């Protein structure tokens, strides 16, 4: 008899690493109920590329320096399985280390009291496992209204920023959080208009163009901006039809900025090389979705449930998802 209900997506295997028994139990329950029972370990142990796992979920604070380095080396050497790090607390101290290695690109923050963002964990795991990565809507429940704007020339940026200021004002959020939102929109739009467009040979068209010089994309090259808010988080996404951003570009720019050395600010033609750094600083969760040669989508979520201090006290989540073109 054929089953009426397919009970499990049994082919997806998850390895869960957490030395804290209580936390491991909680994580195991969530992963079991949404994806399937994971294999659990207290420490990293032996790892091999490819089979048998599709995803490794590990708690950052539970890893010693040796385990973290091995995970970083493993991630750099193998495209599968993907590694998702969970982190309690602010994690800001760990970010330079993480980006310095250029290998780990999935981090999910738990709040300061180690409370897990269950929705975030489910969405992130499923995006990694299903390779269905695009859409701001994945981070919000049904019923949250989304507003959209389309832009294809830099001269429209100021008007768009004015609209976004008005939108943030209508939400009644603290001014400092509204300023973060405006920063993100500004950097998203500038990046999409100047850094993303490529010609038929894949060469960047405007990356070296002064940001004071007005540019206009072709009529069919439209940048889509979406915003929404569910009272807990303010979300913004921008997508371009180029898919020219690469994982290494993002990580290299972030690593450069976190090192705070002489080269922190670029003095070359074009941008200052600080956009991703400013964006990450202004967000609770920064997601970059890339389908090479087709689409880049950047998603930003700002926790607006409290004050700026609440925002800055909580950790930051960061994900780069890449699907085949």
């Amino acid at each position, binding site marked *: 008899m054929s089953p009426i209900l397919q009970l499990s997506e049994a082919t997806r295997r998850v390895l869960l690493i957490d030395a804290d028994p209580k936390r491991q139990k909680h994580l195991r329950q969530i992963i079991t109920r949404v994806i399937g029972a994971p294999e659990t370990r207290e420490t990293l142990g032996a790892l091999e590329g490819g089979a048998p796992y599709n995803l490794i979920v590990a708690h950052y604070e539970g890893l010693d320096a040796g385990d973290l380095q091995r995970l970083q080396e493993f991630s750099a050497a193998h495209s599968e399985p993907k590694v998702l790090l969970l982190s309690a607390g602010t994690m800001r101290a760990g970010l330079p280390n993480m980006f310095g290695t250029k290998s780990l690109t999935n981090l999910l923050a738990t709040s300061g009291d180690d409370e897990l963002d269950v929705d975030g964990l489910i969405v992130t795991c499923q995006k990694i496992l299903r390779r269905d990565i695009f859409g701001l809507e994945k981070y919000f429940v049904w019923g949250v209204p989304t507003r959209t704007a389309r832009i294809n020339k830099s001269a429209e940026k100021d008007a768009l920023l004015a609209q976004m200021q008005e939108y943030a004002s209508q939400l009644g959020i603290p001014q400092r959080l509204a300023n973060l939102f405006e920063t993100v929109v500004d950097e998203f739009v*500038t990046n999409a208009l100047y850094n993303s467009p490529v010609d038929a040979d894949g060469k960047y068209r405007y990356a070296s163009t002064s940001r004071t010089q007005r540019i206009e994309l072709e009529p069919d090259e439209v940048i889509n901006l979406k915003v929404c808010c569910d009272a807990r988080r303010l979300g913004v996404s921008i997508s371009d039809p180029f898919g020219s951003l690469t994982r290494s570009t993002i990580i290299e720019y972030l690593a450069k900025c976190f090192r705070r*050395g002489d080269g922190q600010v670029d003095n070359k033609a074009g941008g200052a090389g600080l956009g991703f750094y400013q964006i990450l600083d202004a967000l609770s969760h920064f997601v970059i979705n890339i389908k090479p040669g087709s689409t880049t989508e950047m998603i930003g979520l700002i926790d607006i449930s409290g004050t700026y201090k609440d925002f800055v*006290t909580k950790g930051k989540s960061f994900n780069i998802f890449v699907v085949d073109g």
Partner: protein
Amino acid sequence: MANSLNVKVEKRPSGLWAELSGDITEDSEFNAILSEKPLLLTLDLAGIKRINSTGVREWINFMTALRKDGARINFERCSVAIVQQLNMIANFADRAEVHSVFAPYICPSCDTEEAKLVDFKANPTPDLEAPVACPNCKETMEFDDLPESYLAFRQQ
């Protein structure tokens, strides 16, 4: 909308005083100050609302040009947006001395937001969590940032 940068320059006995307000972006120009070739310059930065990534570079180039001209620079009344960049960008202040900054407070009772001036000359080791009365409801406001890192730029 980006609020364009306004620069008001005033010659005082103590040197050149420049009051900046608005957003620092790719379109910002500092020629009104640079053309004066000041030897002692005080920048009043209370009115700076936002600085984007290309604005940071314009600012760094501005600081570099001032240093090449031999200017001694003081920052006064740095807005919260300026303090944020002082903490994020290694050479945002270049060799300038930061004399005073605004610290952000929020009232848990009525949500009023207020920035209070912190003068390092009068108070070299300020207590950012000292009680501040809300100008609206008189309740005690809370410092709206991380007290241990808001002034981190002073240690760098």
